[in-house]
């Protein structure tokens, strides 16, 4: 319990520091408005051209709300790897390591503190834009509750991946390319732009087992089409990946610690 409060306070401090970046936060909100505006127009055309009411089981309204939710999560995803990389390069990692804390979990808390305020802002912006644009709400009350819970788990998984990418900085100088690969996988097999139902059969079967859809597709899908069975299965998958990634991060950290070189005197 006392550990949770310690890491919780790290999270809280990181979240407060976000206030300094409020100009950047505002830019992100504008970005969200643009994205959602473009996607609403695109999907309206796509549905018009197809002449159908539903595509892969989604109505136009559902599709747009699905996108609002996946965008909310991806635009809130953690960038903590840049901070870890910078700390390794400049040697500030030395200070963090003199604390009675686990380094990767400290960075997890730091990461969640960064993404939580962004998530709330993105969610609010996306909901307002899509709400005004479509004048309809696709989600239900249980769907919204499921989304919030599953999005929280998704952000945890995402933070673990970001810490993992950050720890790579102990081996290689530049970790950004690894993030780009991860990001593109979220865009595609994670179901950011297209829900998994639209994939060809074989690809959907592969994607179902990968961690990426647990970050974007799963919470958004639970929001637009709430089914208790789906939610249970998906949460099970999320928890399984959380456990596996935690083990992996712990293992990689043990390795990283042994090969740490502190730069800069």
């Amino acid at each position: 319990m006392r550990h949770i409060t310690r890491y919780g306070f790290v999270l809280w401090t990181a979240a407060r520091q976000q206030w300094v970046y409020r100009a950047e936060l505002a830019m992100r909100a504008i970005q969200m408005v643009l994205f959602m505006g473009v996607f609403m127009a695109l999907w309206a055309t796509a549905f018009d051209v197809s002449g159908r009411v539903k595509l892969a089981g989604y109505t136009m309204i559902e599709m747009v709300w699905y996108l609002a939710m996946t965008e909310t999560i991806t635009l809130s995803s953690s960038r903590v790897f840049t901070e870890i990389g910078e700390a390794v390069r400049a040697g500030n990692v030395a200070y963090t390591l003199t604390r009675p804390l686990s380094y990767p979990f400290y960075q997890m808390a730091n990461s969640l503190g960064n993404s939580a305020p962004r998530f709330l802002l993105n969610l609010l912006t996306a909901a307002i834009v899509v709400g005004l644009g479509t004048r309809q709400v696709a989600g239900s009350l249980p769907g919204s509750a499921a989304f919030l819970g599953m999005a929280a788990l998704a952000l945890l998984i995402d933070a673990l991946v970001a810490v993992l990418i950050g720890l790579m900085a102990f081996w290689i100088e530049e970790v950004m390319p690894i993030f780009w690969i991860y990001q593109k996988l979220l865009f595609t097999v994670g179901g950011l732009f297209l829900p998994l139902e639209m994939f060809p059969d074989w690809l959907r079967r592969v994607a179902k087992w990968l961690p990426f859809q647990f970050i974007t597709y799963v919470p958004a899908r639970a929001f637009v089409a709430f089914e208790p069975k789906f939610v249970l299965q998906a949460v099970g998958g999320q928890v399984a990946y959380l456990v596996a990634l935690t083990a992996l991060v712990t293992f990689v950290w043990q390795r990283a610690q042994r090969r740490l070189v502190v730069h800069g005197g």
Partner: protein
Amino acid sequence: MTAIQTQQLTKTFVTREKQPGLKGSVRTLFRPVRRETRAVKGITFAVEEGERVAFIGPNGAGKSTTIKMLTGILYPTSGQAQVLGERPWQARQKLAYEIGAVFGQKSQLWYHLPPKDSFDLLARIYELDKETCRQRQAYLVEMFEIGEYLQTPVRKLSLGERMRCEIAASFLHHPRILFLDEPTIGLDVVIKQRIRDLILELNQQEEVTIFLTSHDAGDVEKLCKRAMVINHGEVIYDGRVSTLKRNYIRTKTISLKLEEPWQGFDRGGRGDGSGVRLLKHKGYGVKLEVDTGIAPIEDVVSQLLARYAVADINVDNPPMEEIIARIYEAPPQEEAR
């Protein structure tokens, strides 16, 4: 009780050397050329609790690497070390409650937040209870005179203000050992002096063991009783600072800015006999070296002030590099302590 003990502590870094050019890059990819750098070569020493020890040496001598092994940040390649009875790299988190560190070239405060927020976070991390934390903060704030900028974001503080906050932050959890790695780097004389006084006061009041590295001979002189000189990863001197001072920090330099042209300076006695040597002079600027064994610095300064109209005067210790170079020329006899 022994605070720090090392036996044959060694750290070797392996770096991959890249050969120049595209051809070199390709060759490095398939046949990497590894180069081993022995940063610390089997050093052995012990520090008692409450001692104030300076760990000095030129750049790249292995000082920081040693500190980082003693704080548990780096794994040694071989050898042993015990800090308060624990192996630092194995009991890093446990030991963290007992030790503090100040790295002069790095920052532990949250850059965009006021120092107060960092203090509060550290209090949580070190699990100080509310009352202890409040008292401790009040005490350190008063001592370091940082009350004024406790609520100012760190990025807006000057280096001197920030460093006082940094050091105060390292004392927050009552460490039994404080490792200071270049704590006064880049600070002006007044702030340096202030920081030394504070560290000294805390050492005396709370018996904190001080383990210091510095390029500043003044830090060493004012703060420490014992000095270990390390060069090329080996301890070449371990003894009292007073001995080091008597033998090697015998000179000070005086930099003058005059309001009239330099016309020489005669204290009586010939050549080096006066204890004052002209290092260089250009226009109204003059630099003198004073052998304090022969000419007390106060005397020289007052004589200079009587002889010339002086716009500015500065008295400095010789840089650490120079002292170490001298130790190298004539290695000292290790004395029994």
